[in-house]
């Protein structure tokens, strides 16, 4: 079996670290995700952080916003690479689904995670 996918959470400030801690607390899975913050980075420095986090492994990049420096750096890095996919609007629900489906190809895992994340956004009657 090929190596399981790596998830890289790319965020402003400490959002990525906090999401990683929440996933570990809920699932007990500690080795599926890597946090990357854009704090103090220009585009070059953020690209270096992302490259280190991906470490030439097949990966899905979970970006916080559908625009801005986290997205632009992630998409540039994933461009032309079949083994790296990008999802925006990261939330806890999509990460919880992802850590148990790391055997999929990156593009399929990204689409599955996006669907799981979308399903979690609701407006329940209170």
């Amino acid at each position, binding site marked *: 079996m090929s190596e399981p996918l790596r998830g890289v959470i790319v965020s402003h400030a400490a959002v990525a670290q906090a999401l990683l801690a929440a996933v570990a607390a809920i699932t007990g899975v500690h080795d599926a995700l890597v946090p990357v913050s854009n704090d103090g980075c220009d585009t070059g420095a953020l690209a270096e952080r992302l490259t280190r986090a991906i470490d030439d492994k097949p990966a899905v990049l979970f970006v916080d916003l559908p625009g*801005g420096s986290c997205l632009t750096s992630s998409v540039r890095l994933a461009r032309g690479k079949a083994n790296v996919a990008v999802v925006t609007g990261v939330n806890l629900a999509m990460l919880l689904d992802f850590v148990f489906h790391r055997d999929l190809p990156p593009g399929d895992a990204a689409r599955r995670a996006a669907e799981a994340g979308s399903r979690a956004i609701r407006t329940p009657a209170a």
Partner: protein
Amino acid sequence: MSIALYRIDDRLIHGQVVVGWGKPLNVAFIVLVDDAVRASAWEQELYRMGVPSEIEVVFASTEEALERLTEWERDPRVGILVAGDIDTLAALTVNRHPVSRVNVGGLHHRPGRSERLRYVYLSDAEASQLRTLAARGVEVTAQDVPTTPPVPLEDFT
């Protein structure tokens, strides 16, 4: 209203520009002055993704910006102009162009630069460039988001 903010930020269009400044200023257009982005439709699409559809994004080379600056200044809507480095914005302040204020919003660590503020790293040459801008009558301050006070040039160069 014209261009309300001339900003130097190596991240170009990102959250602080679109949301941090764009919301309180009620911005209707953003001008991104960058020769490399201007030459790449793919890069332009990438930067456009982070901007709500009601805000127009204009991509310009430095040369095009020099030609169109007066037009943008006369635009009745509120706009932000962003450049990624001091050279580009300094080029817009020469001759007849009425750029009176420049906001240093984000220049991050690179070899040869030292930390001046949490979000501003400058080489000595870059600090000198900003002082030259100020000597030309341009008010230069550093401010990442509008809720923080602007930092006078002499406090970070």
